[in-house]
């Protein structure tokens, strides 16, 4: 029972931070949604990293590494270490500057203004919400799984999920962006400190990782896990497109607008890859180690391998502290809930006259009501989806690919004067249609899915290797659909923009003044 008590204490601390932030804040919309754009550089780095550090990075990654081996680190962690800081450097800093100059709070506000089009904002809001809700759901699912595992099943999945949802909802409800940023900072520090301790202790208890590696290497069934034999090169290459999603996630884009100074970004982009290394390396490595300890788990079950390693290899008190550290990652759904609420209140409620009619206080309370609604929907879905989908696959399928494919729209808005709303609309519709298409293909080919380690199956034999079904996804000639969706998005943005009327001179001069492009 000790681990559960420790996790409960952790949840109480997190709740207190949220309420403390509520007391320190003001009642304005900008304070609730953006912490008055006042985050200092260290809080900004840790909060931004914490925002991106979710259930999938701990539970999903280790679950995937359990089946596919060490290559999972290269698939997402090191690819992210290259792409994410670069996109924050190129796009995040510009969004910050736009927010400071024109008062934008969300990226939809910027895109509406940049392309003089209300509809595109509404469309991007709808698409973003549709892709973000599953991401919130996995947070609740992860919470339920974590508490169930830590308590040895005494706290059932539904109760654990409900508790996590309630705590997250409460501190987002009260603390807004300030509370979320402080909680994320606390969570990041907690995980980075205790994650390392967990890694060392688990290794010690197993008789040393060198021994485990020898055991894995000597077994023909597990030896491929120490290489990238279970990851085709095409898939490895196309995964590099996935981290483009990060900056397009509204919680990351909105977080970029909370920095007090531009210089806060400097430390963030430099230290971000190191934080990724510290988080993902133990996660992927322990996923592989778990293959020798708990063989034969199915994809959904393998998401809990780190927790199993923890509870079987450390004493209850430490398992509780480390379980709390894992909870920290799992609970990153806070920023997504807040982002969705910010977008709803700014891009829908305020944009369509609600703020003018009812005032700023009503706007903040509408946001809070929205937080409650979204959390309840996420919880209901998490209960329905239990054991039906691996956390990692769910997140990738719905959120990452779609947001990655929207990044050309943002790049064009920021750096290409000649881009038009029609080009952006074409790209956004393309993303929506292709996402629906990949979902259909994924579901239609579910019965063809091979087991990990087996070759991919042709979905339509008449079309050869055009559409292949792998254990986790559908590929096009072996490449992930995200690559083609991104390239299609770039092509449509370019071609349709060149064929249509450019934005007004006034808008071009506003966003691309002669002296300092895109910024001043």
């Amino acid at each position, binding site marked *: 029972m000790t681990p559960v008590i420790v996790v409960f204490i952790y949840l109480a601390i997190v709740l207190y931070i949220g309420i403390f932030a509520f007391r320190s804040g003001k009642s304005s919309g900008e304070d609730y949604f953006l912490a008055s754009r006042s985050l200092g550089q260290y809080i900004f780095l840790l909060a931004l990293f914490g925002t991106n550090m979710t259930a999938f990075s701990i539970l999903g990654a280790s679950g995937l590494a359990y089946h596919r081996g060490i290559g999972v680190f290269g698939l997402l962690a090191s690819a992210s270490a290259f792409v994410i800081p670069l996109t924050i450097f190129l796009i995040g800093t510009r969004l910050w500057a736009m927010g400071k100059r024109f008062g934008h709070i969300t990226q939809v506000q910027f895109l509406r203004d940049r392309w003089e089009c209300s509809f595109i904002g509404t469309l991007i809001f709808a698409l973003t919400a549709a892709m973000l809700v599953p991401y919130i759901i996995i947070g609740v699912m992860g919470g339920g799984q974590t508490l169930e595992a830590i308590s040895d099943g005494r706290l059932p999945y539904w109760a654990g999920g409900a508790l996590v949802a309630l705590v997250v909802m409460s501190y987002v409800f009260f603390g807004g962006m300030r509370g979320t940023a402080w909680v994320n900072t606390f969570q990041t520090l907690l995980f980075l400190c205790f994650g390392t301790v967990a890694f060392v202790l688990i290794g010690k208890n197993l008789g040393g*990782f060198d021994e485990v590696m020898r055991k894995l290497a000597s077994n023909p069934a597990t*030896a491929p896990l120490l290489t990238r*034999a279970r990851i085709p090169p095409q898939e490895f*290459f196309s995964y590099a497109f996935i981290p483009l999603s990060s900056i397009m996630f509204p919680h990351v884009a909105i977080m970029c607008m909370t920095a007090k100074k*531009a210089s806060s970004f400097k430390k963030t982009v430099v230290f971000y890859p190191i934080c990724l290394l510290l988080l993902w*390396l133990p996660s992927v490595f322990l996923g592989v180690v778990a293959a020798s300890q708990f063989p034969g788990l199915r994809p959904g079950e393998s998401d809990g391998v780190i927790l199993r390693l923890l509870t079987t290899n450390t004493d209850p008190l430490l398992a509780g502290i480390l379980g709390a550290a894992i909870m920290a990652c799992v609970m990153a759904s806070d920023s997504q809930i807040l982002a969705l609420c910010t977008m709803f209140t700014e891009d829908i409620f305020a944009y369509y006259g609600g703020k003018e009619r009812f005032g700023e206080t009503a706007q903040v309370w509408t946001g809070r009501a929205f937080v409650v609604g979204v959390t309840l929907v996420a919880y209901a879905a998490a209960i329905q989806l239990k054991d039906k989908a691996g956390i990692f696959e769910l997140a990738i399928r719905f959120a990452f690919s779609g947001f990655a494919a929207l990044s050309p729209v943002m790049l064009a808005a920021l750096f290409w004067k000649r881009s038009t709303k029609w080009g952006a609309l074409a790209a956004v519709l393309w993303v929506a249609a292709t996402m629906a298409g990949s979902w259909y293909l994924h579901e239609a080919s579910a019965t063809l899915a091979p087991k990990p380690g087996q070759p991919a199956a042709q979905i339509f034999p008449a079309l050869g290797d055009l559409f292949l079904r792998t254990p986790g996804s559908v590929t096009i000639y072996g490449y992930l659909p995200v690559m083609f969706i991104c390239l299609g998005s770039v092509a449509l943005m370019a071609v349709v923009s060149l064929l249509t009327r450019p934005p007004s001179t006034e808008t071009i001069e506003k966003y691309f003044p002669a002296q300092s492009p895109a910024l001043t």
Partner: protein
Amino acid sequence: MNRSKPWLLTALVLAVFLLHQDFWNWSKADPLVLGFLPVGLAYHAAYCALAALMMLVLVKLAWPADLDRIESRLEDERRPPQP
């Protein structure tokens, strides 16, 4: 140097991207770095450090001057007017 700087930095970014595709480590587990890390995993761990270094170079050599200008202008605006 000034004229070639954007090209050199672009080349640096491309080179770092290409280093991510380490096909030569594909089916190798040995040597185990530090006695327990398969070489493919150790390589990508080192790659993260390289990415951090790349970002340090970009921040030092390609930081948009406009951002600092905006920052100082906004600070001036926030400052109360002198009597």
